């Protein structure tokens, strides 16, 4: 965190100053380790084993916050008889369909709900990363569930969880992670001792945690610990993601993703959502409990914001204009499709995939096979000049004179040269003023899209074609100002907030959204940010002038609520768990929920409320069900659906690993998304043959001195000079084994690429003894490329493309490689070297490793295991 988020890290240092103890778990000793009280080196890719060890420590010693767990989680819920745990098989859960390498989830459901809830079509969901729909709400559960309040029933979630993690002992943590068990126990003790009625602990991760084939399950394991310890919905608790750039939270709320529309409404699928009715029903799940039941109002209001007067109840509010998904359109599928000539044009906005994305060579070959490419960036980046100066030009794979892609480079304004909002990890929107005018032709994104749309509409104005109506009917009437007709960013914020279509009055809360077309809302979860016609995100009332929750600094979605599920900060009867952790509570006199924050609960629903039989929507949740966006109102220790690769996290090895999985016969995540393509070979891992060809583990991350793919730092002298060359960090032991010298050259080889780097020999990396053998790990910064003041080979070129099945995020923190002293070859000899490694590793082009490890037994999926399910 000190490396990648030094500004945020000041609060960790502040906590340390006040006596907090800082643990740092990392494959390499970083600037964070330097100021931590305890540094725990770990084998990269074994976080579930480590965190699973913490779960086991909590359950084996009964250290969970029992009243919280019993009342607010699904610990007591009884799971179907059909469920078979991965522990009782070879590492696969019940319901696995070998034909699609995905699960049918019927057997994972709560008892009695095997056929009427959950999603059976996980293969199809994987194609569209449908798990992301659950970012703002849980998956559906119907009706009432069976519970055992004593937690003794062998099929209650608590007992299943206990059995599942029973083997994740301190000894196993040491064996899998290479972490001495005494050190592990120190960590587990500190975490649990700092949680409970009087204390809370917060789990903060950075996006490197997501970049694994089991990334979602990493975070699930963290969430399970936090739920067991009562650290969710209470002040000082939570699970927070530190994003890699400003406003990454904002770019999922109002998404730059292929599968989502604003406010986590799913992008419609051509076959599954043929009508507006089918689409809305898919979102709201009629008959379900919880707050997602009003989806029709959000969906209708979004279409009204897009198409204004043209959107009417008669034409389903122009639902037909919305683009449709046909399958996987994720960034990596697209790159492979570019290579195969299926995609003609591409916009790149503030992104540098030639350096920043996994498998840089595939990225560059794809972009070299387009008709046109538009690049908007602050500087001339590698993704704009790959056709002229990229490594593939040197190897003869791209010939500049013949490269068919026409590249348009458009200079962009930086964040200080335009106004708008950033949304950070707490869902807090903060308005930015423009500090200076952008230089020369540089323009804001808002300017670019507004005028692009304006010009397209002008060109199509006389078009009689029905297909052009979607563009021509758009509301595209933003006021502009200044010499270059810059659109008014506050007008856009007002549209995002939503308004009454008759009066233009800005809405104050998303509860005002209507399904009849009388409201237009650009992003329903942001409604209230422009309440009363005031830019609430621009509020900057100083801390000393308000209470510690600081509700008048910026604006947080939803409803300016600073903490989600804060009903959990009070006990089931509505009283604060402790004075010290008082936050939101039930005021019996005024019969309302009250407190320091906006209660995340129906304010007049008493703690004693019990839903009548058959109640649906919010009324279906009891007065002590704090997780109001979950269909059963409970925090899910066990996820009967919504997560495609298992109801419980399970340690699998990374897609490329030199180790056999010490816990299960199944080696890697069986549902991981793989692409069989000649450009995308995968290094073999045990028990496949020839894994020793790539004997070392490499991991990549950031240096404080540079920013992501380097476009904003390698181009700036005061930053470039601080880390002026690409390097690889190795332990003294590995340097001796591989014959590397400090400040000498080395080259690293994977089945995709060979890159070179200067060697830094440092004690900050340690070989780990894991399961009876020594694992050497190397570390590389991923900032370098061939443009800018300082240049170097790109670490991301080493990676292949293998994705997490839930969210289609690439495994770009771990791979295997070989390392050799000296510089890499150039020209054709470079390709020959990689080809030689591929041949020695026995890699057949265009194939993928087996999803299910040979010899692993596949459990039948119970009565619903028909491969398609009933979702």
């Amino acid at each position, binding site marked *: 965190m000190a490396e990648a988020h030094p500004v945020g890290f000041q609060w960790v240092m502040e906590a340390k100053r006040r006596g907090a103890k800082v643990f740092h778990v990392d494959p390499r000793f970083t600037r964070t380790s330097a100021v931590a009280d305890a540094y725990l080196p770990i084998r990269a890719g074994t976080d579930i084993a480590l965190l699973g060890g913490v779960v086991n420590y909590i359950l084996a010693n009964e250290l969970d916050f029992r009243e919280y767990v019993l009342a607010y989680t699904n610990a007591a819920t009884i799971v179907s008889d059909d469920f078979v745990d991965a522990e009782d098989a070879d590492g696969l859960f019940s319901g696995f369909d070998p034909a699609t390498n995905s699960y049918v989830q019927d057997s994972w459901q709560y008892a009695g709900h095997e056929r009427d809830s959950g999603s059976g079509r996980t293969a199809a969901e994987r194609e569209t990363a449908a798990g992301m729909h659950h970012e703002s709400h849980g998956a559906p559960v119907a009706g009432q569930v069976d519970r055992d309040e004593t937690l003794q029933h062998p099929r209650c979630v608590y007992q299943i969880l206990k059995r599942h993690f029973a083997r994740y002992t301190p000894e196993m943590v040491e064996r899998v992670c290479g*972490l001495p068990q005494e050190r592990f126990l120190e960590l587990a003790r500190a975490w649990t001792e700092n949680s409970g009625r009087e204390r809370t602990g917060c789990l903060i991760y950075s996006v490197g945690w997501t970049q694994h084939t089991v990334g979602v399950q990493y975070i699930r394991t963290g969430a399970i610990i936090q739920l067991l310890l009562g650290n969710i919905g209470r002040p000082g608790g939570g699970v927070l993601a530190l994003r890699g750039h400003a406003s990454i939270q904002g770019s999922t709320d109002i998404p730059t993703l292929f599968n989502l529309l604003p406010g986590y409404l799913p992008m419609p699928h051509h076959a599954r959502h043929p009508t507006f009715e089918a689409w809305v029903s898919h979102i709201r799940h009629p008959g379900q409990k919880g707050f997602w039941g009003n989806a029709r109002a959000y969906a209708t209001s979004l279409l009204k914001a897009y198409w204004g007067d043209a959107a009417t109840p008669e034409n389903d509010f122009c639902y037909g204009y919305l683009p449709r998904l046909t399958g996987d359109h994720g960034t990596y599928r697209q790159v492979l499709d570019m290579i195969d000539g299926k995609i003609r044009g591409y916009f790149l906005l503030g992104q540098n995939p030639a350096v920043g994305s996994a498998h840089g060579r595939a990225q560059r070959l794809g972009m070299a096979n387009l008709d046109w490419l538009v690049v908007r960036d602050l500087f001339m980046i590698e993704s704009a000049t790959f056709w002229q100066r990229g490594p593939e030009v040197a190897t003869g794979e791209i010939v500049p004179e013949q490269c068919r892609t026409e590249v348009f480079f458009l200079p962009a304004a930086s964040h200080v040269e335009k106004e708008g909002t950033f949304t950070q990890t707490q869902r807090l929107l903060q308005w930015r003023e423009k500090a200076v005018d952008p230089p020369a032709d540089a323009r804001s994104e808002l300017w670019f899209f507004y005028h692009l749309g304006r010009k397209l509409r002008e060109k199509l104005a006389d078009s009689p074609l029905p297909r052009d109506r979607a563009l021509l009917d758009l509301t595209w009437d933003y006021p502009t100002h200044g010499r270059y007709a810059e659109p008014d960013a506050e007008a856009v914020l007002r549209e995002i907030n939503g308004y009454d279509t008759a009066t233009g009055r800005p809405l104050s809360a998303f509860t005002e959204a209507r399904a009849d077309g009388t409201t237009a809302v650009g992003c329903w979860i942001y409604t209230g940010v422009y309440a009363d016609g005031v830019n609430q995100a621009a509020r900057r009332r100083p801390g000393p002038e308000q209470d510690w929750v600081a509700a008048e600094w910026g604006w947080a979605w939803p409803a300016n609520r600073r903490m989600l599920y804060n009903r959990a900060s009070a006990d089931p009867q509505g009283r604060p768990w402790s004075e010290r952790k008082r936050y939101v509570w039930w005021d019996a006199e005024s019969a309302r929920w009250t407190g320091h924050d906006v209660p995340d609960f129906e304010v007049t629903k008493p703690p004693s409320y019990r839903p009548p039989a058959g109640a649906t929507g919010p009324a279906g949740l009891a007065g002590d069900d704090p997780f109001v966006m979950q269909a059963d109102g409970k925090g899910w220790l066990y996820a009967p659906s919504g997560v495609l690769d298992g109801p419980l996290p399970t340690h699998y090895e990374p897609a490329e690993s030199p180790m056999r999985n010490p816990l299960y016969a199944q080696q890697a995540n069986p549902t991981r998304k793989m692409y069989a393509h000649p450009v995308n070979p995968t290094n073999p891992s045990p028990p496949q043959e020839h894994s020793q060809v790539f004997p070392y583990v490499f991991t990549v991350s950031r240096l404080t001195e540079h920013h992501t793919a380097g476009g904003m730092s390698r181009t700036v002298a005061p930053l470039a000079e601080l880390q002026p060359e690409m390097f690889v960090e190795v332990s*003294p*032991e590995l340097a001796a084994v591989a014959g590397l010298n400090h400040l000498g050259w080395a080259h690293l080889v994977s089945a995709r690429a060979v890159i070179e780097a200067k060697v830094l020999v440092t004690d900050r990396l340690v070989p780990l003894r894991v399961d009876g053998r*020594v694992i050497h790990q190397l570390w590389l910064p991923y900032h370098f490329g061939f443009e800018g003041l300082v240049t170097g080979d790109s670490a991301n070129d080493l990676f292949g493309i293998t994705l997490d099945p839930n969210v289609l995020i690439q495994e770009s923190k771990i791979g295997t490689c070989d390392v050799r002293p000296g510089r890499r070859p150039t020209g054709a000899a470079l390709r020959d070297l990689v080809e030689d490694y591929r041949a020695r590793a026995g890699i057949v082009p265009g194939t993928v490793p087996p999803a299910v490890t040979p010899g692993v037994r596949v459990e039948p999926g119970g009565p619903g295991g028909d491969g398609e399910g009933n979702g």
Partner: protein
Amino acid sequence: MTGDPDGRHATPPALAPVGDPAAEAGWVDAPPRMGFFTDTSVCIGCKACEVACKEWNGVPSAGLDLLGMSYDNTGALTANSWRHVAFVEQPRPAAAGSPAPAPTAGLGTAGSSSTAAGSTEFLGMPAAGPPGRTGSADGRSDFRWLMMSDVCKHCTQAGCLDVCPTGALFRTEFGTVVVQEDICNGCGYCVSACPYGVIDRRAGDGRAWKCTLCYDRIGAGLTPACAQACPTESIQYGPLDELRERAAARVATLHERGMPEARLYGHDPDDGVGGDGAFFLLLDEPEVYGLPPDPQVTTRDLPKMWRRAGLAALAMTAAAAAAFLGGKR
């Protein structure tokens, strides 16, 4: 002279008296003396201070060189680097029974590692168990990575100031020492006069440059750029009296928390430069960070030398006079 017999704590009154250097320099009603307290125990090595300094002061690039000195690619305080973050990798001790240390020269980690040059049974491990397993001082977990943002010390008795023949270097009303670039003639006397090796002449320019403690900013009531940018308050700016109190309290806290190695550097008005305007909390000996353990103002002996020279001249004159007088006799 009031110094002790060996001259260690000499305080040459003629050139730079102890006390309020601004007043001594002739400022009337000077504001309190301002300075930096750099607490290295909370430094995270982000180098924001280096970048902020360059941006605000328009300091040119110091070169694009990978130095291999841990994460330090700045190397030293120079005319083109007025803040310098040092990174010190303190190795784990070589494990018992391991072969000779690896040749990792250049890292500053002599004796840092165990390798098996020539051994065929090398397993890459310094000991039988995982690192840190033994819980002894031999474990790799004892590795430390020290970071420290160095800067001009703005000495109470500033050698650079004493020797400047043009008056380009002057004592500000805040008690800091600043070069006026429009007056400096590039003679370079100050370079050899600095006991810390801070002030430096810029190649191609010839003039001497160093930290001004952001004279332009503090005069306008602002915090110097480096301290403003520091995310962890490792660099603290303020009246020197307050900073010294704060620093003493911080050292006491660290001692209480089991860090007896915490100590102050440059805070003592009785040291060889009369105390620094920019002082530090260190976690090891000053030499580890590349700082002189006992800095002395280089002009310390000048009065004595001049007196002796004067005495010698007097004696010579007297002798010469005596010779003439004697001759007459």
